[in-house]
Each structure stands twice: as structure tokens, then as C-alpha cells.
């Protein structure tokens, strides 16, 4: 991959939160949620971000696209630092970077129909599109994500979790973005639906050439979809590399633990993994 097709460069990104230290005059402590994270994202690539709960994955993804303010560093999108953009530039950016959320139902407004939810980004970024044209595009997009256009007037509570996530995907794709941030996009779905949604995402990525920033806590899922994997531990990058390499030959102990913690439906294999987990724990105890 050449230097030209890097669309997003994140450099030394940090996010600090002030948390009250307790007491009336306790002041506040600084919580460093993301520390000095740097990586590149190429056009059409999928980068997986894994780590345990609370390690800063979601915070990182939101700071990159400035849904929360970063404390330091840069996030350069197509040569322009997102963190220094003014509000009108940001609106333009929102057209190119869309997001898919963890909870499929909670991410859809319960008072809006599926059609108007999917149409909303189009309405914001392409107000010149007529209503008829908009409905046509929404119907097309619904077909692409595996929903039927006759569901256009249904409300979110009338859909299943997987269907809700498809609505979320359709909403993210309608403006033809260049990057989609998937924040635990499949974690809330059950396994068979997870597989369907992941395959859908991969198909759509092939069709639209969009890059994905795929966040999950399950390294097995990420391995399936991502070309590269970044492992995050307490807000720091501990490992980044090609998926196969990270999974088959992890260089950092934390990555090994993470891989060993994936359950496998095979008792013998599971025994072996349990052994690995035990060894890692012994080594850690010996080192301490």
C-alpha cells in the first residue's frame, strides 16, 4: 500500500477526562482514557480495534471523528486535521464519515419510521434531493442491506435486532461515505445474526469501497473482517499488525491472553487454551 491512499492518520491522540475525586472540595482527578494512539488507515481497508471493556476503544473512535473532544494529538483526514476543523467543515466531514452503533434499537429514534431514519443523513447533506428521489434511494439502500422496501413506514420497535442493525447500516451508507466507524456493531446481536451482519458489511465494503474502523471486544470476530488489527490495553496501543500475524503470532502478552480468552466449541482445543491461560497467569505472577 502506498502513502497516497492513506485517508486517515491518527498521531499521538490522547483523551483525558476530569472525574470528580469525591468530597465537596476534592477537585478532580484526570482519567487518561486514550494515551498517545497513532495509526494510519488506508482507503478501502478494514482496521479492527480490539481490547477489553473500558480500554478506550469507543472513546478513541469518538475522539477521532470529534464526537468528543480530544486532549491532544492529531487526527488527519485527507490532509486536514479534524480536531482543528470549524463547524461548517465538520458538517462536510460527517458526510464522509458515518458511524454504526452498538445497540441496534437504541440507536434509532423510536418516533421515526425506518424510511425517515435512513433518509435523515441524505436530508442533511443533500437537501437538494427531491422527496421522491430520496424515497427511491432509501428503498434501494434498504434492498442492499437486506430489508424489503415495503418496510419503509415501519417503526424501529417493529423490527428485530438484526433488522435494526441493517437500518443503522443503511443510514450510514446512504451518503456514500468513505469511512464507517463500527462501534461494537455486532456485539449486541446473537451469533448467527452477527455472522449475517458481518458478511453484509464485507459485501457492502466491496461494493462501495468504503474503509471500516471496526471496534469489537471479540478478537475472533475482528479477525474475520479486518485486514489489520490494533490491540488496545488501558488506552494504549500494545500491538498493531496484519490480522493473521496478530492472531497466529501475537507478540504481546495481553494479545495472547485476549486470544486465549475466546471460547471455542471444541473441548480438546479449549483444554489447550486453558493451559495457555494458566501458564500466562503463572508467568505474570513470577514476573511480579
Amino acid at each position, binding site marked *: 500500500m502506498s502513502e497516497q491512499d492513506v485517508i486517515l492518520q491518527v498521531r499521538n491522540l490522547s483523551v483525558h477526562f476530569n472525574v470528580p475525586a469525591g468530597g465537596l472540595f476534592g477537585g478532580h482527578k484526570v482519567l487518561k482514557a486514550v494515551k498517545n494512539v497513532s495509526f494510519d488507515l488506508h482507503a478501502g481497508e478494514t482496521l479492527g480495534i480490539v481490547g477489553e471493556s473500558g480500554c478506550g476503544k469507543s472513546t478513541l473512535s469518538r475522539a477521532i471523528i470529534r464526537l468528543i473532544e480530544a486532549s491532544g494529538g492529531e487526527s488527519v483526514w485527507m490532509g486536514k486535521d479534524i480536531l482543528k476543523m470549524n463547524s461548517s467543515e465538520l458538517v462536510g466531514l460527517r458526510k464522509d464519515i*458515518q458511524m454504526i452503533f452498538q445497540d441496534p434499537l437504541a440507536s434509532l429514534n423510536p418516533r421515526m419510521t425506518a424510511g425517515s431514519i435512513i433518509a435523515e443523513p441524505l436530508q442533511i447533506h443533500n437537501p437538494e434531493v427531491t422527496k421522491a428521489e430520496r424515497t427511491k434511494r432509501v428503498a434501494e439502500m434498504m434492498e442492499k442491506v437486506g430489508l424489503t422496501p415495503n418496510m419503509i413506514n415501519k417503526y424501529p420497535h417493529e423490527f428485530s435486532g438484526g433488522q435494526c442493525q441493517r437500518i443503522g447500516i443503511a443510514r450510514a451508507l446512504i451518503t456514500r461515505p468513505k469511512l464507517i466507524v463500527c462501534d461494537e456493531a455486532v456485539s449486541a446481536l446473537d451469533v448467527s445474526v452477527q455472522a449475517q451482519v458481518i458478511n453484509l458489511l464485507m459485501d457492502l465494503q466491496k461494493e462501495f469501497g468504503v474503509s471500516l474502523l471496526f471496534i469489537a471486544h471479540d478478537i475472533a470476530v475482528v479477525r474475520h473482517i479486518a485486514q489489520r488489527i490494533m490491540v488496545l490495553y488501558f488506552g494504549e496501543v500494545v500491538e498493531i499488525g496484519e490480522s493473521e500475524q496478530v492472531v497466529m503470532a501475537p507478540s504481546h502478552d495481553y494479545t495472547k491472553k485476549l486470544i486465549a480468552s475466546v471460547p471455542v466449541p471444541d473441548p480438546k482445543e479449549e483444554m489447550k487454551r486453558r493451559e495457555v491461560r494458566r501458564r500466562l497467569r503463572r508467568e505474570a505472577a513470577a514476573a511480579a
Partner: protein
Amino acid sequence: MVLRPIRVEAQADPTNVDDQSYLTATKSRSLWADAARRFFRHIPSVVSLVLLVLVALFAFTGNFFAVWTNSEVDWSVLGRVPELGAPSLESGHYFGTDDLGRDLFARVVQGSQISLMVGIVGAGIAVIVGTVYGAVAGYFGGRLDSVMMRLVDILLSIPYMFVLILLLVVFGRSISMLFIGIGLISWLDMSRIVRGQTLSLKQKEFIEAARASGAGHFTIIFRHIVPNLLGIVAVYATLLVPQMILTESFISFLGLGVQEPLTSWGALIAQGASNVMYGTLWQLLFPLGFFIVTLFSFYFVGDGLRDALDPKDR
């Protein structure tokens, strides 16, 4: 307990439909339609709603049925009201007359108009001002929120009955002054309720989704937050209407509210109560009946709405 077999309706395969129904949108139920269905299954609220409609019809069409106007004095009964002014169909005084010989039916019609108007205008101001104020404060949060809500706190800490009475004394007793006074206080509680709801709503993922897709603050507040607040606003507004009517009646009972020749339920009740000892009970019972029926109906409707719109029910 008898176990009934559970009937499972076969789910049609959504992708296996003929071309005609593939493109025509299927029927669907919004949350509002769902709530309406629940509301109309609750019999006390439906009965109350019917009663309210009847009271409103009475207030706005009653004048067509009245034989006397509200300012005409029936000279034949004047001075002998306890004997001749009782409700009767022949004389045309369906509700009897008041102590000045005026037709009570026409007076109650007029009073109903004013009382309902005070209630609805007061609640209307609360809905519009309170919702926008509370939603803006809750959505933006931080310092703006603090300033806006402290202002509400300060206004709430002033004893409003005192201010209302002062306003009416200083600027004269007029119905517009009464509207201004009630309008000034009615939205305060509403804005607090709305702010609280907004605070919890803005943590929801769909608000973040709207931000991520580039929606502006205005769009987020009016497309995503306010529609999700309307349930609670509707419930509170229906409970606010009787509160406003009560406030106005109280003020009128004190003699500070609406002035002659205008009247309201409160003013009519006050007059009726002061004449009860002369044996003209109808002068108290008719306005009081309307007053009680309306208040109860509003409370029942509010209750039914709350049950119908309660998100925990879903």
C-alpha cells in the same frame, strides 16, 4: 388456571412476496397509535373524555339553547328569587336565576367559556414555553443549563399567589392581566420536567447517531428530542389544565379574578355560596357541578394518558 394453547401466527417470509406487495409499504403502528389504542381501552378515561367534550360543547354552543342572555334581568323574579327563580323549563331558566334575576344557564355557559379558556391558555403557554426552555437547557447543559434553571428556581421561590394578587391590584383587575399572571408561572414546573427528561434522552445512542450524521443542534432538539418528550408533556399538560382552572377560580372566589359582567366558575361558585342561606341552593350546585365534573375528567384523562404513554409498559 386453565392453560390455553398459544396461537402462533406463521411469519410470512419477508423476501418471498409478490412484486405488487414488495413495493407497497405495509401498514405499521407508530408509538402514538399504540398509545391511543391503550388509552381507548381504559374505560374511565374514555368516559371522562366524553364528559369533557360535552362540557366544551356546552360552553361553546350553550348560548344557542339559552332563552335569556347572560346580561338580561328577569324583572318578574327580582326580589323574589328564592320563590320564583328556581330551575324550571317553563320560565326558560333551566338552571334557575342568580340573586339579581339573571339567567343562570347563560351565566354558566359564559363562566365555562372563561374557565376553560384560562385552563387551556395557561396549559398552552406551559407546553410551548416550558418544553422549549427545558429542552434547550437540558440539551446544551453546562453553564447555560445552570443559569436557566437557577432562574426557574428563583421564580418558583416567589409565592406566586401573592404576586398574582399584587399584579391584579396594581394593574387593575382584567382578564388579560389574569392570563399574564397565570402564563408567567405555569411553565416553570413544565420546564423542570422537560429538562430532566432531556438530560436522560440526550444520553441515548440515537442522539449520538444524529450528531454523527451531522445534524445541527436545532434539528436534534426539534426532530429527536421534542417528539420523544411529547408523551410526558401531554400527560402533564392535561393535569395542568385543572390546576389553572383551580387557580383562576380561587382568585375569582377571593373577588380579584374576572369582573362583572364577565364571570367564571369560581366567581359563580362564590356568588352561589354566599346566597345558600337564602335557600337558593341551585346557584351553588350548577356551577359547582360543572367545576367538579371538569376537574375530575381532566385528572382521569391525564391518568389514562400516563398509563397509555408509559414507556415501561412497552
